[in-house]
């Protein structure tokens, strides 16, 4: 079940003909209708004078692009071995037969059913590094000889329909002291500190912010900054196995300078649109998210506490 974000996009193009100047604009307005799950809108054509054409077509496509990172495989392999894109949906209609468009503004309405191809599932729109899920509309106008064909692209956004079930929030408490740290060379050189906190939930609703609290009980070295780092973990499967990469989406500072000890500081982060989607797990690829609470001390010690997240849409 899917529905579309309501949005309007406009494309402009100035076309210069041999004898006359024709302004051609294609504007698609998508109206979401949840029940029928259709992409609907209008094609807007604006030209000064009447325009001869050989047909206008509209093409809708949903694709998952996968890319192998150079870290997992070599640079060249990454270039050659990129996985074939997975087509989720594809539809093509002819909007207008060859003919003439009168001068001025012409609006042609259209409508597509959102029906996945075969037994495929439509995923949410997601812009990542190694995984990209994108839905586009392309409008083409064939033109007679001596004139270039015109083409406009427009992305539309697909959101999963909310899952009916409610998730109970599971708060996670954490305590950071020199003893709880892993991955350090010299434990003795560490300054003393005690930092406590909690996340209200690790299974988050994507439209709701990530919340929680962090509290510096004490710290010998002054604190320089406390940050929240949102990380995506993308896994691509291919013939040779799979590649798993973690990259930063955004880094939000929640404390700056030597904060008051014993006073809880709120953790608050809004999940950015497009760059996050509900946690996704398919046979070919996976998109997961994690958050790091990063504490930077004044002597540039970096203390990180990692929490895997499970995002969903309610």
């Amino acid at each position: 079940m899917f529905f579309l974000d309501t949005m309007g996009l406009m494309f402009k193009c100035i076309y210069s003909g041999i004898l006359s100047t024709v302004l051609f604009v294609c504007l698609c307005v998508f109206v979401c209708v949840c029940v029928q799950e259709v992409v609907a809108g209008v094609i807007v054509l604006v030209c000064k004078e009447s325009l001869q054409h050989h047909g206008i077509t509209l093409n809708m496509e949903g694709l998952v692009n996968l890319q192998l990172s150079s870290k997992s495989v070599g640079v060249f392999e990454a270039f050659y071995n990129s996985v074939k894109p997975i087509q989720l949906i594809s539809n093509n209609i002819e909007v207008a037969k060859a003919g003439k468009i009168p001068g001025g503004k012409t609006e042609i309405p259209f409508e597509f059913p959102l029906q996945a191809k075969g037994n495929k599932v439509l995923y949410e729109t997601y812009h990542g590094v190694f995984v990209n899920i994108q839905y586009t509309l392309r409008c083409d106008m064939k033109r007679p000889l001596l004139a270039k064909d015109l083409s406009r692209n427009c992305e539309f956004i697909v959101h999963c329909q909310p899952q009916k079930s409610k998730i109970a929030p599971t708060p996670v408490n954490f305590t950071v002291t020199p003893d709880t740290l892993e991955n350090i060379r010299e434990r003795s050189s560490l300054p003393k500190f005690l930092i406590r906190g909690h996340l209200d939930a690790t299974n988050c609703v994507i439209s709701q912010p990530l919340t929680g609290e962090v509290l510096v009980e004490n710290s010998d070295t002054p604190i320089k900054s406390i940050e929240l780092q949102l990380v995506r973990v993308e896994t691509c499967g291919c013939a040779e196995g799979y590649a798993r990469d973690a990259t930063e989406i955004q880094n939000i500072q929640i404390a700056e300078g030597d904060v008051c000890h014993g006073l809880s500081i709120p953790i608050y982060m809004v999940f950015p649109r497009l760059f996050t989607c509900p946690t996704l797990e398919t046979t070919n690829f996976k998109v997961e998210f994690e958050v790091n609470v990063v504490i930077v001390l004044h002597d540039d010690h970096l203390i990180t506490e990692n929490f895997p997240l499970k995002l969903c849409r309610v």
Partner: protein
Amino acid sequence: MFCASSLCGLSRRSRGRNYDAELQRCRPEMAPVEFGDYHPLKPIMVTDTKTRRGARKGSTSSSSSSSSSVPPDPLSSMLDGTDPLSMFAAASATETPAVSHSASAGDLGRKRREKEEEAVGPDFEPWYSKRGEILTRFTTTEKLSINLFMGIDKGKAQSPGSSGVSEKVRTRLEELDDLEEGSQREMLNLSQQDYTNRIEELNQSLKEAWSSDQKVKALKIVIQCSKLLSDTSVIQFYPSKFVLITDILDTFGQLVYDRIWTMCSDPQPLPDSFTVEDVNDTAKETCLNWFFKIASIRELLPRLYVEAAILKCNRFLNKNGIQETLPRLTAMIRGIGDPLVAAYTRAYLCRIGMEVAPHLKDSLNRNFFDLLTTFRQISGESVRNQLVVQRVEVPEYLTLYSPAISWILQCIAYRAPEPLLTEMMERCKKLGNNALLLNSVMRAFRPEFVAARATDFIGMIKDCDEAGFPKHLLFGSLGQSLASADPPESERLTILNEAWKVITKVRSPVDYISCAEIWVEFTCRHFTKREVNTVLADIIKHMTPDRAFEDAYAQLQSVIRKILTYFHDFSVLFSMERFLPFLDMFQKDSVRVEVCRSIMEVFIKHQVDLTRDPVILNAMLHICKTMHDSVNALTLEDEKRSLALLIIGFIRMVSFGRDFEQQLSFCVEARATFCNLEPVLVQLIHTVNQLAMETRRVMRGSHSRKTAAFVRACAAYSFITIPSLSSIFSRLSLYLLSGQVALANQCLSQADAFLKAAVSILPEVPRSISIEGKLRSSESFLLDFINNFLATLLVVPDHPEHGVLYLVRGLLNMVQDYTWEENSDAKVRIYISALPLLAAMSQETYLYSIPKVDSNETLYGGDPKFLSEINKLSETLIAQILDHLKALGREEQSTRRQGAVALSLFSALLAHGDLRNNKLSQLTVNLWNLSHKHGYCETRISVRTLEHIKHQAQQPDMAHLSDTVQRLTLQTRT
């Protein structure tokens, strides 16, 4: 044809006049006005009942009390208590004491009250009034720097292409990109003024970027600017920096709000009280986009500030947006480590909160409590280190907080219930180093609240840590509250004593005076001159060593101002021993004069009764002398004029009642003191003249020997004062006036001397004088004066030793010798106006006379010699005039003037000459013809003149005029 020569040598006789009879004739017929008739000024009244007419006739009282028989007047019927305004007033008045008066009225009242609570009233001191104060108070001479890095936020999405490149390289590349755009700028070594200008430039470029649709650039500017607020180097300047930068944030917030607002007002403008449902989807989407963008700002401080700036936009998204966001932002501020930065961020949030949602008090309180919790950071190590590096003392550092904390407290205290304020105070008490807080509490809370607990506050101030916040500032704040609200009567003296005990111990004169200045108001408000005197003595004691007063003129002036607002009784004021010594501290001339001036202004405004109190006179003379002595060659005209006005105001308030001699001697003294200000001298002469007239009134016109001597002394005063004036016209008019006064007081020789003096200085009158900086011909003034003078001459008796009509002849000689402007008829005009005088002099009874002074009528008793003397004189005059007429006739361009002169001579002769004399009558006819010869005469005037003559001819013994009329022909211009 007009022949002048044929008329020479004829006797010109003025006709006899009976002034009384003429006066009777001239009076308009008296039309008796019946009382109660229509009068335009009488209010229009509706009285319809016939029975009442008689009774109500002429009454002007309003008809509101009349019975129903009077038709309803729309205005008075509104006053019956049915109009909405008085209904509200009645409702709210009864609503407070009564529990359930009337349900509807009560509801109405409650609703109104709720609304009042919601809105921020005019009694809330707005931010912009604080702005200027902060900017002037927190300044620095250190060099500042602005570091703007217009890079892309690192938290933003990475493009897949750059994923392979390492983090470091990526930032480098971004920086390179930015440098190409020229957007990274680091400005060092800026003076404070430069800094302010730069910030203003940024404000401008923000607006430009916005209007040129570069929204992203605008956002970047705002983010970079708010980032500057995390920089606390040059910490003394931080409050000012905060003010400057929040201006930019305000601009930005307004821009965003306006844009979204216009997006929704496409078909019709959105009402002010719109709800979420009224907002269309596009606007919501745009608004949401802004919030998403801001939520991804990497750094905490810019994120906080920018979100606070567009807090108002939450109204477009959902109903509770603001309500939910404010507490969240409040909590987020806890993440700011630097206590100063955090305090100011809180102040900004409170400000925005008060603007956008003044009813949400909770987050204000939350902010304050958080602030209290973080208070211990101020004495923490990182702050200490910072202060050492910047070489800033702790007390100075603490004062940096006061604008922010005061603002937060002001927001909280605004219309807050008493218990809340008490709770706040208790919380402040609990904290250790609470001087700073205490100071802000006293500044922010209602003065009434503070005043009621003044004794408590004094106790708390005493308990404060001496090292932290300077105590004189605390007392200053307390004094400010007490200046506008009254503490309980019984505590006042204790408060003053306690406060002054501390104030007097303040060593630094600057600190001392700034505090003492505030407390003067409290002292003046509640205590008598004794206490104020003590305070003044203390101030003198503190400020005199090392001439400390030189740096504190502003404060000392304000002390004087405050005293003057409360002490309007100048006898009390000047009986304060220390008042004049206090004035002596103003040793810089300009300040001194300014102070004197302010005292004088108050004196003139508030001294209602005339005074002879020696204390006041001495002091005021001293003050006026100070002002007078400040006048020098470089003083501007305006300045002189205003000083003179003030001194004149003082002189007019001086009166010794019946003790005229003392008044005169005061004038003598004043003349000596104020010799440089001419207007003052003029006033003195007027005063003395008035004195003489007053004496005359008291003696009912007949002077005793003593009073006669006195009025002669007055005349002598005027006579010797007038020559020292430089303005010729004030001299002339004063001579004339004083002459008249002398004459009225039977001082004949003095009057003669005045008038002679006036005549003798006539030749000195310049032909042009400067009026308001422009050179004007003096002719019209001179003509006016001479006409006035001539009128006086009628009653001046001839001097026995000089010839007949000595003064008239003298005047006419002067007129003849005076170098008149070329092409001017002024001389002849004077001659023409002298003719009526001569005519009046030849009457048996004069038109007017002065009691107890024998005019020429009595002296000569209609002696034919005297009359012939007059006739001879008038003949000469007429001959002169005719000569002039002839001369005018010679030139083509002067014919118009000839006509005019001829006509006025004609009128003079007609009115005053005896036209029974044939020759004279012939002359008038000739003059008439001459004036009409060139057709310049206005027909309307001619017609009216003829009608007048015809009218005159109907009078008894004027019948001869009808012959003359026959000969006067009306020539119409063809």
